[in-house]
């Protein structure tokens, strides 16, 4: 992840390839060098942030005693009685499921408008992309604060906050997936005279569905963890009970609830795997279910996978209504898939999923009355947040933004090492042994299951108030997300070159450095920048537990109803996130 890659080779260290006069290395280009420099600057800032925050062994050693002390205070864990616990769990799950469902409903049209190949026109596309970025940049807590003013206390607030904020991720990834579709079926439909909407429903959405489902399930996971944060601003459920427990220093209860959240995350993960396999038989989910060498289909993880259509020309996947006409008009081919066992199973699951969503919506108090009541107070609420103001604290805000940036840079860098290591070990096509890969996948999953906020709380207790706790929490949190992304993109490397190297008798390490890493590293780099982006937004929220930075100003401004300041903070964070995003896009473009 540095400019070193841009250097022209001084001595040809590479094995000379087959005897051709063709230059095997790209000449260093101006954009390439510039991107490398930009990345170097990022790295340097990260290094500087780590030293600036005095995030070092000495600090950790000093905190070790506090950690021991803390563990003695959280044991024995104190679980609430089962009925109460199940009630809390259902309350939380309902908000999470309904919120995620809402985000999917909102995301599909936005994504179609934001994708280059399905948008109406350029202004439209820019608008849609802006909406997506805005949803991502505004923390869910801010949406929750705004939704409170509209819906008052209750599940509805949580549903709307999660739903709108999630559009930032679901919409973005869906739009990316739409841009990556195979245009063949669409062209065929257009040739047959299909209108724009027919093309979209007939050729675009079926191709995007696998990645949409995968994204939605992944977001469900994230939202489950985010719901803990919402508890801190008063959305009922496990998070709220956890927040109250923490506030009265009842760590036995707090950590018990944290453990419940953790276990729920694991349960989610296995359920979502099962759902993916049931709904999307044409997409093999995890490589770990097959020997990696014969593994062709990709796991549609966070990055939208190209659809299976592209892999099997001439075999339209189930569910794609291709105007099948192979030139022989003798037999009228069947245009819809047959009702075989698999389709029946899929339909049953789909019905169950829908029922669950409806039940969740009901439990969260989503109702027309609430919505109609809300329409009246929507504009005044918006008025509360405008115009952006600083309440005479522009300087403080800038200082704190700086701290937030430091926290996120340091956190990303701290998480990078273990994340890349674990990610490599969790990639089935690198380690070769499915058991090892599965083990490390589980390790990553364990880390990911811990909501960053809980980490931050623990770390604030252990290292005291301040940015160190925030940076460490983000660092640990990064391992979960970045590790997963790294593993996924390593596994998504085309098997061709890997097989070729294996065929020539290369060792596993040689295969990794020769065929996997060179193809995966631009993606990995993109993920690192994405992680930085995520961390900037998370760092904003860690202020809630005293981890310093601009999040503190945001939450406090909300607390004292200075909504103009909230808007200012959001805009500042937005500007930074956009910068990182721009950098990521540019780097990907340069290196792709």
């Amino acid at each position, binding site marked *: 992840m540095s400019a070193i890659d841009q250097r022209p080779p001084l001595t040809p260290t590479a094995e000379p390839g087959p005897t051709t006069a063709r230059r095997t290395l790209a000449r260093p280009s101006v954009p390439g060098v510039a991107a490398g420099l930009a990345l170097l600057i990022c790295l340097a800032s990260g290094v500087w942030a780590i030293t600036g925050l005095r995030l*070092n062994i*000495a*600090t950790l050693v000093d*905190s070790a005693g*506090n950690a021991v002390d803390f563990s003695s205070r959280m044991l024995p864990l104190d679980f609430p009685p089962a009925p109460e616990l199940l009630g809390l769990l259902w309350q939380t799950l309902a908000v999470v499921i309904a919120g995620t469902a809402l985000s999917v409903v909102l995301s599909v049209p936005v994504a179609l408008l934001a994708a280059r190949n399905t948008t109406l026109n350029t202004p439209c596309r820019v608008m849609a992309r802006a909406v997506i970025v805005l949803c991502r940049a505004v923390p869910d807590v801010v949406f929750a604060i705004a939704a409170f003013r509209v819906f008052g206390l209750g599940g509805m607030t949580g549903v709307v906050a999660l739903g709108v904020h999630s559009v930032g991720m679901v919409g973005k990834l869906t739009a990316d997936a739409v841009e990556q579709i195979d245009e063949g079926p669409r062209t065929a439909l257009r040739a047959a005279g299909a209108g724009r909407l027919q093309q979209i429903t007939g050729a675009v959405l079926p191709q995007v569905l696998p990645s949409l489902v995968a994204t939605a399930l992944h977001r469900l996971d994230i939202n489950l963890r985010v719901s803990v944060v919402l508890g801190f601003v008063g959305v009922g459920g496990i998070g709220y009970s956890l927040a109250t427990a923490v*506030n*009265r220093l009842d760590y036995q209860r707090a950590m018990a609830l944290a453990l419940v959240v953790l276990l729920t995350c694991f349960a989610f993960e296995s359920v979502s795997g099962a759902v993916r396999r049931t709904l999307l038989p044409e997409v093999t989910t995890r490589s770990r279910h097959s020997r990696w060498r014969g593994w062709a289909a990709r796991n549609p993880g966070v990055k939208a996978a190209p659809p299976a259509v592209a892999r099997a020309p001439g075999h339209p996947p189930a569910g794609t209504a291709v105007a099948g006409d192979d030139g022989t008009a003798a037999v009228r081919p069947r245009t819809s898939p047959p009702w075989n066992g698999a389709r029946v199973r899929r339909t049953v699951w789909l019905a169950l999923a829908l029922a669950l969503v409806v039940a969740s919506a009901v439990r969260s108090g989503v109702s027309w009355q609430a919505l109609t009541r809300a329409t009246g107070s929507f504009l005044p609420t918006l008025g509360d947040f405008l115009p952006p103001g600083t309440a005479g604290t522009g300087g403080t805000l800038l200082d704190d933004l700086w701290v937030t940036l430091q926290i996120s840079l340091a956190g990303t860098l701290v998480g990078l090492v273990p994340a890349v290591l674990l990610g490599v070990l969790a990639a089935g096509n690198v380690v070769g042994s499915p058991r090892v890969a599965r083990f490390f996948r589980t390790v990553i999953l364990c880390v990911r299951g811990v909501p960053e906020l809980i980490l931050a709380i623990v770390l*604030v207790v252990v290292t005291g108030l301040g940015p160190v706790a925030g940076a460490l929490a983000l660092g640990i949190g990064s391992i979960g997300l970045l590790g997963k992304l790294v593993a996924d993109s390593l596994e998504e490397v085309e098997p061709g070159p890997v097989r070729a190297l294996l065929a020539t008798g290369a060792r596993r390490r040689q295969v990794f450095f020769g065929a996997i890493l060179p193809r995966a590293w631009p993606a990995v780099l993109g993920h690192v920048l994405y992680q930085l982006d995520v961390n900037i937004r998370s760092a904003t929220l860690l202020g809630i537990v005293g981890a310093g930075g601009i999040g503190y100003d945001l939450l*406090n401004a909300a607390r004292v109803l200075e909504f103009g300041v909230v808007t200012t903070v959001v805009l500042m964070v937005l500007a930074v996130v956009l910068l990182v995003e721009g950098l990521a896009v540019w780097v990907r473009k340069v290196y792709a």
Partner: protein
Amino acid sequence: MSRPLRPSALAAATLLPLVLTACGSSAAGDSSSGKEDPSTLTMAIIPSEDANSTAQHYKPLVKLIEDETGKKVVLQKATNYAAVIEAQRAHKAQIAVYGPLSYVVAKKSGVGVEPIARQLLTKGGTPGYWSYGITRGGNKDISGLSDFKSHKVCFVDENSTSGYLYPRAGLKKAGLKDGSYSKVMAGGHDASALSVAHGDCDAGFADNTMVDQLLIQKGKLKKGDLKVVWKSPLIPSSPVGVSTDLSGTLRRQLTDVFTKKANADYLKSKGYCEGDGCFIYGYWGYVPVKDSDYQTVRDVCATTGDPQCKAGS
């Protein structure tokens, strides 16, 4: 792009943080007790009013402590008392501005803290304050605590003395059981009062200064927006606690600074500030304090039996 370099570059980049974190001095304080004389003092505070001008409010006081002790003072803002208690427990905050209840809880849960001064609102006044039960100005349904039944009630935070503990004791006395009203934690006295005024809560609690003066001075509320339907017994005012990690000399020095010099008159005479800017967060200054001043809080704790009173025990 030189292929063979790539892995090593990656390895170098990933190892960097490890190397970095391996050296340097600690950001966490040592936990050696009673001997410390650090060059920097961290002061943990909860801004209970207008968040965004905290630094301004405390600036004269911070400057005063810096001048008197010759040390740098860093303000560490927290959103709730739990964070302040933990900061002092983790030896991260040498000075902490507690509420009466959070001080009691900190002490009880084994934090090494010694009270050195307590707040005084007006010169020569009583070092204490009251909790008000409030509802919206025009609300005819609620005229006392017993009317809070089955309404949405705004409290401040579970470790707030006037925003939770005394109100709960009051409600208990008025015959309202737990669960006969719905609890909302607003997060601050101002937020609680404003939520009631805006109708987000039917009734609520906040301290008298917030209701009678601060919000009106700031133009957030007009007189008559809120109706006071209950007043608590006098609550001893908020203490400043210093960590027992600090050397005895330094603790005595800080006690002197707070009780003799940290007040609007002295700050003004020394030119630290002007006019109303000399009021430390709206308070005139500090007076001496002893642990037994908070016995009444412990007694109220005993009557409500709230779990946060038992923290850490």
